């Protein structure tokens, strides 16, 4: 009963927050509402006994990822951004068609699919008997899921290299030794100044 009540509260807040995110024209307001949504989603994770996921949700999404978003917002020229039309005219009609389809699909998935996620034997009782959520997750991650886990580190490494490659400051002189396309070639110093 209490779980149900809390779920309704968290879910309602999360949906309300998400609606706010897409309707605010002020990006900073949207950002703060996004944090609010993330925290409520973390609450839902808590209710489903996914404690680790809840902590990650706060730590990584409401924390780190939001910092990233905040930086992106700071790059944008907000004044100009607010004046632009936020929705494409054709987009509205697409929404009218696609949203019901999406809703029907979600209703179908929730109601008609026979779920059997207990196939691996991970019932809440079994998890509790083995020492809890984080314990079981750690064991799985470093035994059964070892290969994907190590590949994940490669993905992180590629991400790091990519960020440096695309955003790091390079030597001031023109990077294009030969100009190929008429206006496609910009000198590095010019780009850095624009930023």
């Amino acid at each position, binding site marked *: 009963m209490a779980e149900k009540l809390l779920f309704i509260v968290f879910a309602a807040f999360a949906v309300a927050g998400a609606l706010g995110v897409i309707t605010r024209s002020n990006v900073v307001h949207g950002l703060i509402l996004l944090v609010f949504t993330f925290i409520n989603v973390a609450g839902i994770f808590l209710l489903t006994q996914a404690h680790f996921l809840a902590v990650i949700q706060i730590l990584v999404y409401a924390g780190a990822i939001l910092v990233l978003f905040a930086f992106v917002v700071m*790059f944008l020229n907000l004044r100009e951004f607010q004046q632009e039309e936020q929705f494409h005219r054709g987009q509205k009609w697409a929404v009218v068609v696609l949203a019901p389809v999406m809703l029907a699909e979600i209703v179908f998935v929730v109601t008609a699919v026979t779920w059997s996620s207990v196939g691996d034997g991970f019932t809440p009782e079994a998890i509790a008997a083995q*020492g809890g959520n984080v314990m079981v997750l*750690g*064991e799985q991650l*470093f035994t059964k899921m070892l290969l994907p*886990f*190590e590949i994940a*580190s490669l993905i992180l*490494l590629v991400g790091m290299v990519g960020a440096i490659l695309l*955003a790091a400051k390079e030597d001031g002189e023109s990077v294009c030794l030969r100009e190929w396309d008429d206006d496609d070639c910009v000198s590095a110093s010019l780009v850095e100044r624009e930023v």
Partner: protein
Amino acid sequence: MISPSVDLIVQFGLMFAIGAIVAVALITIAHILAPTSKNPNKGLPYECGVLPDGDARLPYNVHFYLVAVLFVLFDLEAVFMYPWAVSLAKLGTVGLIEMFLFIFILLVGYFYAWKKGVLEWE
């Protein structure tokens, strides 16, 4: 006896209530106690006594973003360490090696970033 579900709602309720009370109380107390000044100049941003000029929200150097991305990546790395630390006793030496392999790969990235001069601030 209180049933577990009622217990849960009491705990959450108490937490929310205390949080809300503290937040509201702090703001209200500050509002009451703080000396107020009606001068409109009080509301202006402080720029060393000079009248503020232009937008406060200046475009940022892309370098900040780069540091933020690196922070997210290492944050994700740290996230993987929690379940590892909890279950290390069961995993034993193999678990230690596996985690060090993971860290080593990211260390390559760290070394690369360092040598590329990304962590230096001019």
